[in-house]
């Protein structure tokens, strides 16, 4: 009976994504996307804490962190350069890694219950109350940005002793054990903004809503917005960087990127079509 809806709501995105027409895939007129400038990112962790504050992320404590149960949806990775690893004369390399909200997300197709699927505004949703915790999505995620509730954190001594629960954001749930979770592009904020705009009979304006990480970033390294709004800051950056959401080899890269444009997507060759572009970190050779 509701097979029709199932086909329309899930298989449509899977089978047609990414199609030729970005507008067709996003009927609501929104395609949320991000651009992260690695030359501006200083690795200060402000975004990480902002995410903890906004999204009710549990603090798991040392013993569980040691087991690899950390729940940071946004994590700052610090790599060393292979060349000068003895004395890193050109500093370290920082990578703010979060869910890439792939257009053809590997996690979506494998979930047995369809707890993670694609929304009309181009997000890779994670429906907590539908998740049965098979963890197949995590297996299939190339970026390993999905975090599983290995324990019932609301009951953990570390997470929220009174009165800390009063800080919890009522716009989203606190996840219990056995549920997979991940960065949602602060969907609760997007939802609120869209609803507001809808009441005024318009689309969300650029800068009207942003994610917690982008908002806090002291250097403004993170730009968030609607890719379908040609005047949005993020759309401009994607254009500047010659990045096409629906290409797995960008034109500029096909001809060897002669203009040295910095935009790229992580593990792009896997054809997941991430919604986040990174701008290459810059180092001065003379220095």
């Amino acid at each position, binding site marked *: *009976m*509701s*097979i029709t*809806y*199932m086909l329309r709501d*899930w*298989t449509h995105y*899977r089978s047609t994504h990414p199609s030729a027409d970005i507008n067709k895939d996003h009927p609501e007129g929104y395609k949320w996307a991000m651009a992260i400038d690695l030359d501006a990112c200083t690795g200060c962790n402000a975004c990480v804490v902002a995410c903890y504050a906004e999204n009710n992320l549990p603090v798991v404590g040392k013993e*569980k962190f040691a*087991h*690899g*149960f*950390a729940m940071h949806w946004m*994590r700052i*990775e610090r*790599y060393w350069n292979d060349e000068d690893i003895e004395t890193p004369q050109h500093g370290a390399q920082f*990578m703010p*890694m979060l869910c890439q909200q792939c257009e053809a997300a*590997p996690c979506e*197709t*494998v*979930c*047995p*219950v*369809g*707890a993670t*699927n694609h929304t009309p505004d181009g997000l890779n949703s994670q429906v907590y109350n*539908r*998740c*049965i*915790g*098979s*963890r*197949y999505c*995590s*297996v*299939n995620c*190339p*970026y*390993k940005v*999905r*975090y*599983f*509730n*290995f*324990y*019932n954190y609301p009951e953990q001594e570390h997470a929220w002793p009174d009165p800390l629960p009063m800080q919890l954001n009522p716009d989203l749930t606190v996840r219990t*054990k*056995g*549920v*997979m979770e991940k960065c949602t592009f602060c969907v609760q904020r997007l939802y609120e903004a869209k609803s507001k705009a809808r009441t005024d009979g318009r689309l969300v304006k650029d800068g009207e809503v942003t994610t917690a990480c982008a908002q806090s970033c002291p250097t403004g390294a993170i730009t968030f917005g609607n890719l379908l709004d040609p005047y949005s800051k993020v759309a401009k950056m994607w254009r500047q960087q010659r990045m096409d959401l629906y290409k797995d080899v960008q034109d500029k890269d096909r001809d060897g990127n002669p203009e040295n444009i910095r935009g790229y997507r992580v*593990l792009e060759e*896997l054809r997941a079509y991430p919604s986040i572009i990174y701008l290459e970190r810059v180092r001065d050779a003379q220095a």
Partner: protein
Amino acid sequence: MNDFNKDKEKDIRDDIAWAQINKDVLQSIEKPRAAFWYLFAFAGALFAIGVGCETYQYLRGMGVSNLNTPQVWGLYIASFIFWIGMSHSGTLLSAILHIIHADWRKPIYRFAEAMTTFSLMTAGLFVLVHLGRLWEVYYALPYPNERWAWPNFQSPLNWDATAVFTYLTSSMLFLYVGAIPDFAICRDNARGWRKQFYTVLALGWMGTDRQWRNFRVSYMTIACFLIPLAVSVHSIVASDFAMSQQPGYHVTSLPPYFVAGALYSGCAAIITLFIVLRHTFRFEEYMTFPILDKIARLTFAIAMVWTYLNFIEYASVWYGDDDYAKQVLIQKATGPYAPFWWAMNFLGSVLPFTLLSKKIRSNLTAMMIISLLLNLGMWLERWMIVTPTLSHDYYPWMLDHDQWPSFVQWGIVLGSFGWFGLLFMLFCKLVPSVSMYEVKEMVYHRTLSHRHGHAAHAREA
């Protein structure tokens, strides 16, 4: 050993009286001896351990199993594949050999069939065990519901479930249908509660021509139906991995590789049980060395197929230009899992060569040990498929986040063997583990051919 030379040409003596056959087999389902109960208790204890661990995990959360991100599957999925694999040779022996009229299968296919069914039932448990929210498992069932929400039919996990359950039901059917005539025999010889028990099971089998005719047809039909199913099941299990995009999982040759591995472990398991039954129930007359010899050869053949496919996989990765997959392979051979990986290759590809020696093939103790080792190797294989990839895939930041499986994981794996043991021991005492009517056929065919042989001599003279 002395009678080995006597019946080495023949799979079975052709002068066994049919009454004798009934007698020998029926005594195997008589009142169990004390040893049975000790063993039964032991298996029960193992199972209890497994249940205990699962309960603990259910209450505390998956964390107690020492799984973590990205190492999210561990022994659960590995053992799942292992048990699915075990189930395959039953089908091979009973169905395939049945169709190609290899009648040496007849004395041994029954317990092999049972093994198939029970290992499937064991595998099913792991599907449940590995879930983070077991209590919501019904979300995965495609049933019409008021929420109008359906499972995701694109997920290999769902194909998997479907395939496994189909296979389970049909192999149960096969086992049961094949046993009907024997149930009738039991019915005629049993007393007390067993009488009623077998009466129900025998479905009023009278052995009329009509019944035999229908029986043959339906039995053959199920057999034909079962063979493609058996192949498809493990191919689909393989697609859980092949359909993902993880390096080391995303391999085209995985389905045949899985099937080969399955048959391999299955045959090894059959040898084990063959020897056990032969010993406990004194089935020397039926489970004879020539038959063991044939299974051993079959095992060797499959081992070589497996080795070949295994090599294919390595080669295609090594000579392909998927650098990630290559690094996974290197990781397997050199990383923290190297000992297990090499052990698996040794046990899987080198050890079977011992089967080439007739002396070993005819030495029960040796065969027992070898078959157990082969199965160990096959279990390692499954583990080496699941785990190293997760510890070394695309994303450098998450490499090598390994943890040794906790007692919970091991406990549940042990429990699964206990569970299998329980089921199989019950089977031995309730169902004749040697198919009486088919052994009779076998003997009968032999006698026919011999008479024929004598006639020929006469004419020459």
